[in-house]
């Protein structure tokens, strides 16, 4: 969950609890206050009636006091049962509205001028209810506005405060160890973010140093290995010229030579991979893919013939990419080589060039390695233990380097490699 969402949700939850709880408390206390007020008014009215009974009709009178309908009634009774103020709620027919309304009623039994009477004063609750509703509505509306403000302010402060943090994240995201230039962060007004940037800068320095050391170490090792290999190779060459070697010795020499060559090729391939990693192919030029393919197919012509493979060239348009010609050549060489070497006798290879698209499709046995591992280093088919297993890893590396997208699929014993030149 995003930080902004999280904090907004957090604030909203708290605000909702506070507003909801507060609203309920406010609503009930307001109601209580209103009820209390009505009671007080009823008692005042009652004293008024007791003091000036002649003003009020014995049967009953409706009057409007301060916009509130009030109903007075004085009824003679035989005896006084209860000499206290009795409050009750009742429904009375409202003459003005023509329907029953809620009234609060105060009744009092007393001796009025020698006669026992029961005085009842009923006060409409309509307006006080309306007032409560109105206040509740205003409270709700204010709460909603407050919530909107919380969300808005949270967003605003979020981008103000965390902006630099996200800039830092962007810098780290685009960070590549092989970039020669350092990383630069924007100064923030928040100390913690500056500390974070400093930590990253220090980390970057350390990693760069380690990486540089490792790079030099690999380069030195790779070059130093070539010299002893050159000696082994030349010694074996001389040994092979010997007329007197027997069958066993010949096999031993052959095995030494094969291993030396494998080691040398392995070394060369690893150097190539590390060079791509180190960004050592920064020069770019226009490379004609079609011309390059034709060159390699030409180079393999005899092999194609001896395996009786039919090659279909389907060039729908010229295809030129902006890249290092050596790398593109190595990439195409590896792909075409695979399509020929891993083909079946009398199989087919189809090379299709479309706008921004190259497809190489060849017949062949089913893969005995998983598709995910296909582009990984040192992945090789079990029936070809001599292979280095680096060809497709190099192809993938080159594609990644130039942001070409490469896909492999297999349909009815046809292996299809597609490269999209973005």
């Amino acid at each position, binding site marked *: 969950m995003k930080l902004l969402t999280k904090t907004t949700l957090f604030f909203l939850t708290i605000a909702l609890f506070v507003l909801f709880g507060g609203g309920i408390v406010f609503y009930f206390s307001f109601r209580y206050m209103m009820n209390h007020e009505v009671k007080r008014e009823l008692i005042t009215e009652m004293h008024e009636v007791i003091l000036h009974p002649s003003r009020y009709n014995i049967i009953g009178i409706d009057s409007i006091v301060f916009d509130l309908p009030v109903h007075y009634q004085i009824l003679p009774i035989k005896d006084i049962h209860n000499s206290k103020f009795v409050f009750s709620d009742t429904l009375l027919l409202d003459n003005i509205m023509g329907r029953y309304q809620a009234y609060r009623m105060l009744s009092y039994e007393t001796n009025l001028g020698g006669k026992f009477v029961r005085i009842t004063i009923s006060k409409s609750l309509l307006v006080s209810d309306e007032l409560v509703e109105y206040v509740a509505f205003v409270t709700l509306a204010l709460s909603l506005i407050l919530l909107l403000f919380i969300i808005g302010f949270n967003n605003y402060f979020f981008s103000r405060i965390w902006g630099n943090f996200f800039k830092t994240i962007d810098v780290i995201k685009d960070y590549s160890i092989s970039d020669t230039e350092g990383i630069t962060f924007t100064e923030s007004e928040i100390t913690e973010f500056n500390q974070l940037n400093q930590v990253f800068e220090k980390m970057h320095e350390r990693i760069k140093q380690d990486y540089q050391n490792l790079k030099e170490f690999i380069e030195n090792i790779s070059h130093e290995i070539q010299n002893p290999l050159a000696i082994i190779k030349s010694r074996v060459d001389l040994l092979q010229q010997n007329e007197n070697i027997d069958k066993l010795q010949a096999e031993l020499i052959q095995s030494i030579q094969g291993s030396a060559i494998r080691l040398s090729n392995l070394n060369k391939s690893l150097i190539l991979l590390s060079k791509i990693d180190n960004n050592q192919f920064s020069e770019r030029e226009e490379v004609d893919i079609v011309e390059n393919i034709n060159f390699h197919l030409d180079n393999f012509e005899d092999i194609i013939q001896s395996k009786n493979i039919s090659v279909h060239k389907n060039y729908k348009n010229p295809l030129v990419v902006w890249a290092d010609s*050596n790398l593109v050549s190595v990439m195409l060489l590896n792909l075409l080589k695979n399509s020929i070497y891993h083909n079946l006798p009398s199989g087919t290879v189809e090379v299709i060039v479309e706008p921004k698209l190259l497809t190489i499709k060849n017949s062949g046995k089913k893969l005995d390695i998983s598709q995910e591992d296909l582009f990984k280093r040192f992945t090789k088919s079990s029936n070809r233990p001599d292979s280095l297993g680096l060809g497709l890893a190099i192809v993938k590396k080159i594609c990644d380097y130039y942001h070409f997208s490469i896909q492999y699929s297999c349909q009815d014993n046809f292996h299809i490699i597609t490269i999209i030149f973005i």
Partner: protein
Amino acid sequence: MKILIVEDEIELSESIVSYLKSEGYLCEHALTYDSAIDKISLYEYDIILVDLNLPDGNGIQIIRKLKESDFKGGIIITSARDTLDDRILGLNSGADDYLIKPFHLAELNARIKSLTRRVLFKGGNTITLNEIIIKPDAHEVYIKGKLMDLTKKEFALLLFLATNKDRVLSKESIAEHLWGDYIDSADSFDFVYAHIKNLRKKLIEKGVGNYLQTVYGVGYKFVEK
């Protein structure tokens, strides 16, 4: 024909000298930059092999000095560095060829022969082996005066075998010569075999003796009887 080998690895230098001597070249070797400079100022050489990384200097400097002194022979760089930049630097400084270590001695021999033809005989040289005449620059082979029909690779194979005649060439060195880098040699052996078979068949069809011999467990050999 005199060759100077500038190489700081004694054993490699010994192997090269041993191989080239049996080819009939006069060889001398220099293990350091200084001794190389001494030798080229004192003696004349037809071909100079220069390693770029020397303990006390850079091979490029030797090549520049040679060019300043109006050296007419051929220069081959042997180096473990195989970047395009290194090659361009080497060839621009005046070298004629660039051979990446580790290399096969047969490959070195073929490069020297080709350089000799180009530099010393100005490309007019032909290789004659009994009834076979090879014109390397025209990519043509004549047998008893008749032009032979060979594919590019078959021609390259025949030339490689002929320049290293009476030498055993391993399948590995042939594969490397024909297909170059980044080819798993194991893949190529069958095709080397197929090429040899085709070439042998074509030669026999033309009524030439069986010059291509199989050396069991090692490779092939062109024997001029």
